[in-house]
C-alpha cells in the first residue's frame, strides 16, 4: 500500500534553490493538497516525486522503496497533468486505455478496462471523440480516467482543474475526491487555489519559496494557523501592528495601536511580555460592528460597502489609520462612524516579525 516518505528534499537549478529541507510523510489512503502561490516550488516537488527532474539532496521513498535513479515509467504512480496533456491523435477511449495498451494486455482485458473507466468518469457517449471535440471538463475527466487506468494506488494531480470554469471546477473537484476515496487511493493534489485545497484535502501542506510553512487539516490551518503567512494566504485577514501594554493575571492582553487606540484580547499564549511588539490578526467575520458606542472596541469610518450575498462586506478606515475588511449581516449604510469589537478569542496575536509584516505576507 502506498505511502510516501520525503526527507530533507532539496532541489537546485544552477544556483537557484527551488526546494530546500522538505520533510513530508503522506499516509496510505490520504488525500493531501500541496498549496502555495505560483513559483513556490509545488511543480518542482511533483517533478522530483515523479522523476521528471533529478533531486539535488535528500531522499524520496514510495512504499518504503528509495526511488532515486528509477525512471518515470518505472515509478509506481499515476498522474494528471496541469495542461491536461491528452494525446490529440487518439480518441477518448484510446487515451484512456493507453496504459493497459503499452503494457500489452490482451484485447478483451483492454475492452474491460475501457468500459469500466468510461463508466467511472461518465464519458461512455463521448468515447469515440477526439480530445479537441470535448469540453474542458470532459477533457479533464478523460485525463483522470487515463491516469486511473494505470491501476496505480498513488495518484498525483498537478493543478488538475485550474484552467476550467468556476462551476466546472467545483463539480469536478468533488468528483475527483469521491473517486479517490472510493478506490482507496492515495492522492497528492497540487493547487494554488486555497478554496480548492480546503474542499478536497484531508491535509494541506503550505509551501512558500521552496520550503514547507505549515501542515495541517483545512480546519486547523484556517482557524488556528501557526504563522501569519498561512493566515493571510488561506482566506482573508486583517492585520494591525501594536505593542503590548499590559498582561493581566486573568489572561487579558492589552494592546495599544497607533493614535492611542487600544483594546484587550484573550490569548492562551503566556509567552508574551509587556512592551513587546505584536501583530493582531482577525478574519472579516470575527468582529462585530455597531453604530453605537461599545466597550473595548476600535473606532473607524465606513468607506465602502459591498453586498456579497447573505451579508455585507465593509471597508473601514480605523482611527489607527489601518484599512480593514469586515463582514456583517446588518445594513449600516455606506458611510459613518462605527465601533468594532473583535471576538476576543478568534482574534490572534503574533510576535511582530523581525523583517517586518510586509515581508512575511508576500507570496514569493
Amino acid at each position, binding site marked *: 500500500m502506498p505511502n510516501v516518505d520525503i526527507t530533507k528534499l532539496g532541489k537546485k537549478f544552477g544556483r537557484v534553490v527551488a526546494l530546500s529541507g522538505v520533510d513530508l510523510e503522506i499516509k496510505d489512503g490520504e488525500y493531501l493538497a500541496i498549496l502555495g502561490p505560483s513559483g513556490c516550488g509545488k511543480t518542482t516537488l511533483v517533478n522530483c516525486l515523479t522523476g521528471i527532474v533529478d533531486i539535488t539532496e535528500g531522499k524520496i521513498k514510495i512504499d518504503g522503496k528509495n526511488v532515486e535513479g528509477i525512471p518515470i*515509467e518505472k515509478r509506481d504512480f499515476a498522474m494528471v497533468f496541469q495542461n491536461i*496533456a491528452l494525446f490529440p*491523435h487518439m480518441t477518448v477511449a484510446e487515451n484512456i486505455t493507453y496504459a493497459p495498451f*503499452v503494457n*500489452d494486455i490482451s484485447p478483451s482485458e483492454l475492452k474491460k478496462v475501457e468500459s469500466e473507466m468510461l463508466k467511472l468518469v461518465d464519458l461512455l457517449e463521448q468515447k469515440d471523440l477526439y480530445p479537441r471535440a470535448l469540453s474542458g471538463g470532459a477533457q479533464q475527466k478523460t485525463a483522470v480516467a487515463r491516469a486511473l487506468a494505470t491501476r496505480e494506488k498513488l495518484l498525483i494531480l498537478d493543478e488538475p482543474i485550474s484552467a476550467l470554469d468556476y462551476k466546472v471546477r467545483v463539480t469536478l473537484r468533488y468528483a475527483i475526491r469521491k473517486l479517490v476515496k472510493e478506490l482507496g487511493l492515495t492522492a497528492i493534489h497540487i493547487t494554488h487555489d486555497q478554496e480548492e485545497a480546503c474542499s478536497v484535502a484531508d491535509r494541506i501542506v503550505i509551501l512558500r519559496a521552496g520550503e514547507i510553512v505549515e501542515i495541517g487539516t483545512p480546519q486547523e490551518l484556517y482557524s488556528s494557523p501557526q504563522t501569519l503567512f498561512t493566515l493571510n494566504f488561506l482566506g482573508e485577514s486583517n492585520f494591525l501592528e501594536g505593542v503590548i501594554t499590559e498582561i493581566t493575571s486573568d489572561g487579558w492582553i492589552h494592546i495599544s495601536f497607533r493614535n492611542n487606540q487600544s483594546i484587550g484580547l484573550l490569548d492562551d499564549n503566556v509567552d508574551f511580555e509587556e512592551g513587546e511588539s505584536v501583530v493582531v490578526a482577525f478574519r472579516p467575520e470575527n468582529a462585530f460592528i455597531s453604530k453605537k458606542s461599545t466597550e473595548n472596541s476600535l473606532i473607524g469610518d465606513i468607506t465602502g460597502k459591498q453586498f456579497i450575498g447573505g451579508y455585507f462586506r465593509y471597508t473601514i478606515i480605523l482611527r489607527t489609520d489601518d484599512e480593514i475588511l469586515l463582514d456583517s449581516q446588518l445594513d449600516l449604510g455606506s458611510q459613518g462612524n462605527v465601533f468594532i469589537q473583535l471576538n476576543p478569542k478568534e482574534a490572534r496575536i503574533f510576535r511582530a516579525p523581525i523583517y517586518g509584516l510586509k515581508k512575511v505576507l508576500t507570496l514569493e
Partner: protein
Amino acid sequence: MLQRDRSQLERLVIRIANFTSKPRVNTAWYSFVVFFFVLLVLLPTIFVLGYVILEFTAIQNSVFSNQEIQSQILSALFYSISVSIIVSIFDLIFGLPIAWTLVRKEFRFKSLLNSFIELPLAVPTAGLGFSVALFWGVTPGVESPIFAVQFIRNALPMLILFHFTTTFPYVVRSLTAILEEIDVTLEVAARTCGASKFTAARTVTLPMFRSGVATAMVLSLAKSLSDTGGVVVLLSTIGSAARTGTTLISDWKRAHQDPEMIPFEGIPYDSLLPSMAFLAAIMIGIAITLVFVAKIIAKKAQLPFRKVYPSFEWAVSEGKAPQMRQIIAFGFLILFVIIPSFFLVAYLIQGASLAALASANWELFGQSIFMTVLVASVATVVNVVLGVPMAILIARKSHTFSRFLDALVDIPYVVPSSALGFSVGLFWAFQPVIPVNELFFVIMAHISMTFPFIVRNTVGGLEELDTAYEDVARTLGAKPMQTFREITFPVIKFSIIAGAIMSFTRSVGETGATLAVSPTSTTAPVFIVNLIKIDQNYFLAALTTIILILISSMLIFTLRASISRAKRK
C-alpha cells in the same frame, strides 16, 4: 556600421509602409505583388507545360521517332527517380534520431553539432560534388588526398552518397524545427502511463509529427531531383558518362547553343528543343507527383501505432542502447555528411599547385564571382520586397484566394532547377515585349527559384505572431501599415532575414537553372563546373568553391551576429 545599415533598412521599410497605407495604393500594391508572382514567377516556371501542349507535333516527330533520345531520357529518369527516392528514405531513417537528439537531449557538444549540421549548406553544390567524389570515388584524372576512401566507380551509388550529403542538413533542420513545436509533456504523460521512452516516442510524438515528416520528405525529394552542377562535377570527376534528368537538360541546352557540338550524340539540331521541353515537362510532372504522393503517404499511412512490442522497446530504451543509437547516428553524420562536404579542403592543402594557378583565366574567375554576387543580391532584394507582402497576403488575409496562393507558392520550389531554368528561358524568349538580355533572364530564373524561401519563412514568422497584438495596436488607433511597421515587422524581421540567407546561399550555389537559361552566362558555380569538366583544373575549382563558401558564410555570420545582438537588446 551595421547599426546604421539596419536602421537604413528599417527606414526604407517605414517609407514603403507609409506610402502603402493609403487604401488605393494599398490595393494597387497588393495587386502588383500578385501580378508579379503569377506572371513573372509562377508562369515562367511552368511555362514549358504549355509549350509541350502547343508544340506536341514537334515533340512527336523528334522524341517519339528517335531511339537515341528515348534511351537518353529513360536512363536519365531512372537515375533521377531512383536516387531521389532512395535518398529521401535514408534521410528519414537517419534524420529522425539525429533531429530527436538535437531537440530533446542535452549534451556537451550540442551547440557545436547544431552549427556543424548547417555547415554543408554554405558549400555550393558544384564544389560539394567534387568534394564527395574525391572522398568516396575512384577518380582517374585527379590524385585524391590521403584518407580518401576511393571505393566507388559506379554512377548510382555515387549519386546516392552525394545527394545524401546535400539533402541531409535540410532534412534535419526541417525535422528539428517541427519537433520543437511538439509539447514534451505528452511524452512525459505517456511515460507516467508506463510506456518506455521508445514506445512513448513512437506512439505519441511520431504520429503527431507526420506533417513534419512529409515536409522533410518533400524537401529531400525536390532537392535530389533538382541538383545539376553538383552532379555534373561529381560524375565527370569519377569519369562516368551517366546523366540525370537535370544534367541531360543542361547538356542538351549547351549543344543547342554551340553549333560545333551538332549533331549531339546522334541527335539532330531541330530535335533538341522539343526533347528538352518534353524532358523538362516530365521532370516537373514527376516532381509535383512525388511531392503529392509523399504528402499522402505521410498523412494516410497506417503505421502500426496501435500495437506494442514491449520486450523489444524496453530493450532499446534502457541501459546502453540509447547511447549506442546516438553514437551510431552521429558517427554516420560525420562519415557521410561532414567529412565528404569538406574533403576538398584536404585536397586544397595537399594538391597546391602553382602551375594550375598560373594557367588559370583570372579575369573570368573575377567576373564569375562578381556575377554570382550580383545575381544573388538582386534576386534576394527583389524577393524580400515582393515576397514579404505576398506572405502577408497568405498569412493575414483569409479568403479562398490567399489559400490558393499558399498552395501555388511552393511550386517553384519543387520544380527541378534545370527544368525551371529551361522553362524560364523559354518564356522570356517567347514573350515579345522585353528584348533578349541573358543577365536579366538569369536573374529572373533565380528570383523564381528562391521566391518560396522568403515567402515560406515570413509566413512562418507571421503565424508565430498572435494576431491579438496587431488587433490591440489597431484598437489603440494605429493604421494598418503603422501596425505592420511597429508591431509586426520588428517580430518577423528575423524570419525575413533567415529567408534572405536561404535565398542568397541557394542562389550563390545554383548551377542548373543558370545553365538552362543561358549556357554562356558564367556565374561562379558554372565556372567551377567548366573548370572540372572542360579544363580539368581541379585545384582552381576547389579554390573557387572555398571563396564562395567564405562569401556565403561571411554573410550568414554577419546576419546571425546582428540578429543575436538585436535579440539581446
